[in-house]
């Protein structure tokens, strides 16, 4: 309880409250603009966080992360274009409702479902912190270097396996990310790896430079070389609060969708897409009107919006508990943790439990703030859909420069960022996923760091997996690999038949 009150007190700082407001409203606007996702906003904001307090930085990024999916539902429902990729399923039923003249109903349902999903996973995390807090403090003893190494390996395998149709490409890009993490001088033995005698590469490639290049600059190039879309006019009416009344009529769908979102958020590498798929499919199976799914079913809309908004809070759990990010946005947040000198991992429950409470309470505040903003200003936010894409591209390019330059006032950083941006542009053109590249970079660093730190306790190969936690994780890795191989063989057979 003491940690909870301390966490609450941390949030009462005016700068933190201001960051919550800016992050939430900014994230909402960014989510509502198709073509600009939270990843781009977080990538550009990352360098600025170096100059801000730790909690202010994290709350700002969490604001963008937690609120963008609320905003993404607006274009998904009004013009059939998801604001963020995770709102894709929302279009199936949301846009169908708009075509029936029920845009306001769809929006209010999406807001209330998102709010329920977000709050459900936050409250679940807070309850877990209250209930298991004293035990979680002992978790640190269970997790050694080798256990975290295995957790990072498991995260990597899950990440690649989750890219179902692009598994080969995901592995390839993960490998390249890992390779980028290798570049630079090894600290213990002073041996240069893949530096090719280029002085700039001796300290290694800066993570933020790569992230801004891959996510922000590449998207700027895509927008600049593309065409402006011409979205149809959409009208938004009132009655935004009625969604809560309708939501209460679909209790079962709402609760299990939130549960799926929370569960899938906890598993590294899985994320919003799989959570939505499970909740949507289950909602369809349980529905009295399954044929309405895809044609404007409120249950379909509830299932997808509740599940995807339950993920952000849950995705913080593997990051905080194991120090293993499960997706690109939490991987970017790792940078802030590193910068703040807080090492995410089991020790965080012992040393920074008030900080944990601060983060989850902040997420709760963000959800409340976003809902209130949406109820009051949906009409205004919906206008953001009509900002021309190419003009947005020019703004993203200008913002990317200041993001990269502010890290250490280096023009070489800007040149490297634009090289990564161009590579990212080609990858985006080919529809190759970018997330494995960034996670390869982050997880690769973790694997390398933990392997070196734990090496002194490894007499033989078995010592890597002879602790209870590492053994369980290693078995999980093997099981996933077996499942992947089995499903590949099965697919091949069915293709031949």
């Amino acid at each position: 309880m003491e940690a909870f009150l301390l966490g609450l007190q941390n949030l009462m700082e005016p700068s933190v409250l201001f960051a919550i407001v800016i992050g939430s409203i900014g994230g909402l606007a960014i989510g509502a603009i198709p073509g600009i996702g939270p990843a781009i906003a977080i990538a550009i904001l990352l360098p600025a966080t170096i100059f801000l307090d730790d909690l202010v930085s994290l709350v700002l990024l969490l604001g963008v992360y937690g609120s963008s999916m609320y905003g993404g539902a607006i274009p998904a429902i009004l013009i059939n274009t998801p604001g963020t990729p995770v709102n894709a399923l929302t279009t199936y039923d949301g846009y169908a409702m708009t075509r029936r003249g029920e845009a306001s109903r769809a929006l209010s349902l999406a807001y209330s479902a998102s709010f329920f999903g977000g709050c459900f996973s936050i409250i679940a995390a807070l309850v877990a912190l209250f209930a298991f807090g004293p035990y979680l403090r002992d978790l640190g003893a269970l997790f050694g270097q080798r256990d975290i190494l295995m957790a990072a390996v498991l995260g990597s395998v899950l990440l690649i396996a989750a890219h179902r149709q692009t598994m080969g490409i995901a592995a390839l890009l993960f490998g390249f990310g890992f390779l980028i993490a290798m570049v630079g001088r090894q600290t213990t033995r002073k041996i240069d790896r893949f530096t090719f005698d280029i002085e700039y590469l001796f300290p290694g490639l800066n993570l933020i430079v790569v992230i801004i290049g891959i996510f922000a600059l590449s998207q700027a190039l895509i927008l600049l070389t593309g065409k402006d879309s011409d979205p149809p006019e959409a009208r938004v009416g009132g009655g935004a609060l009625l969604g809560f009344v309708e939501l209460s009529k679909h209790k079962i769908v709402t609760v299990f969708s939130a549960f799926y979102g929370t569960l899938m958020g906890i598993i590294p590498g899985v994320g919003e897409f799989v959570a939505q798929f499970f909740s949507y499919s289950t909602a369809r199976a349980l529905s009295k009107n399954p044929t309405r799914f895809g044609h404007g079913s409120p249950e379909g809309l509830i299932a997808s919006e509740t599940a995807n908004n339950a993920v952000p809070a849950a995705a913080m759990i593997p990051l905080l508990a194991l120090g293993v990010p499960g997706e690109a946005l939490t991987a970017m947040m790792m940078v802030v943790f590193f910068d703040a000198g807080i090492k995410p991992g089991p020790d965080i429950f012992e040393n920074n439990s008030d900080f944990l409470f601060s983060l989850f309470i902040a997420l709760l505040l963000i959800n409340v703030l976003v809902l209130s903003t949406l109820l009051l200003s949906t009409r205004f936010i919906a206008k953001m859909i009509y900002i021309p894409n190419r003009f947005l591209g020019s703004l993203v390019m200008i913002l990317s420069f200041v993001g990269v330059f502010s890290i250490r006032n280096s023009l070489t950083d800007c040149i490297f960022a634009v090289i990564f941006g161009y590579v990212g542009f080609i990858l985006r053109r080919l529809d190759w996923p970018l997330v494995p590249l960034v996670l390869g970079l982050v997880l690769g660093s973790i694997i390398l760091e933990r392997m070196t730190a734990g090496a002194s306790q490894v007499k033989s190969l078995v010592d890597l997996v002879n602790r209870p936690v590492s053994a369980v994780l290693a078995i999980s890795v093997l099981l996933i690999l077996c499942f992947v191989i089995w499903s590949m063989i099965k697919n091949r057979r069915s293709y031949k038949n």
Partner: protein
Amino acid sequence: MTECHYLLKAKRNRLNKLINKSGLNSLNLYLFDEQTPGPTNVPAFFKSECPPDGKVKLDDLFQFKRKRGDFLFSLIILFVALFFLISFFTETGWQSRKLPNEFGTYILHQFGLAEVDGKLVRFGRILKQSWVGPLLCLMVLIPAAIWNVRTSFQVHRYRKRFLLPTGIRYELEKYVAAIEYVAYFILYTVLVPTLGYLISTLFLGIFLTWRLGYRSGRWILIGLSSSLVIVFVFRSFLQIKTPINIWLYDLLPSAVRGFMLTYF
């Protein structure tokens, strides 16, 4: 017979009218799918469609179709990976490696498949060496790159067999078009230390707005004010240090100079 013939003709005319009205012809109908960027990465162009039966498969959410240019890029990536494989022997400390005698037997011993006489070297001592990380990385990278080229080649062959377009000119044109904006970015990077952050950003903001075709006074003003807001937010609000145009500021009256130095 005449009536039937007349009906068919009317139907064909109606279809032709529809095609003309929508601006499609046989050529771009054929290439239509190729020219629109994919759904997941470029949501701005994505129009969603639920399967007709409403049943969503997990694969629907991860739909991926290899595009033209994929095979060429996969080949380039394979060559880059092979370049790193060759560099492994000179760029990772491999030359100064410390391995136990009869390393093959030592590794087999780790899996319980062989016995080693004498004192065993700790496995951790090998893990600490600088080449282990790159080796692990290449163990993922090289097979994945080969696998990817193989899959990409299969798709390429399939396209050829079914006379689907395989030319990469359209993609290459897009890559070249992007180089123009890369050049603007590099020019901007070079100009910032000379002209200062404010002037360079205003210049780029206005120029890009004009270059992209938004040439009315209203749009130029929007471009100018957006750039000004970006400079203000990063310089004043986030307190980020960027180069300033000191010689221009020195020409200003002292009160304005002080204001500009603080906020822009």
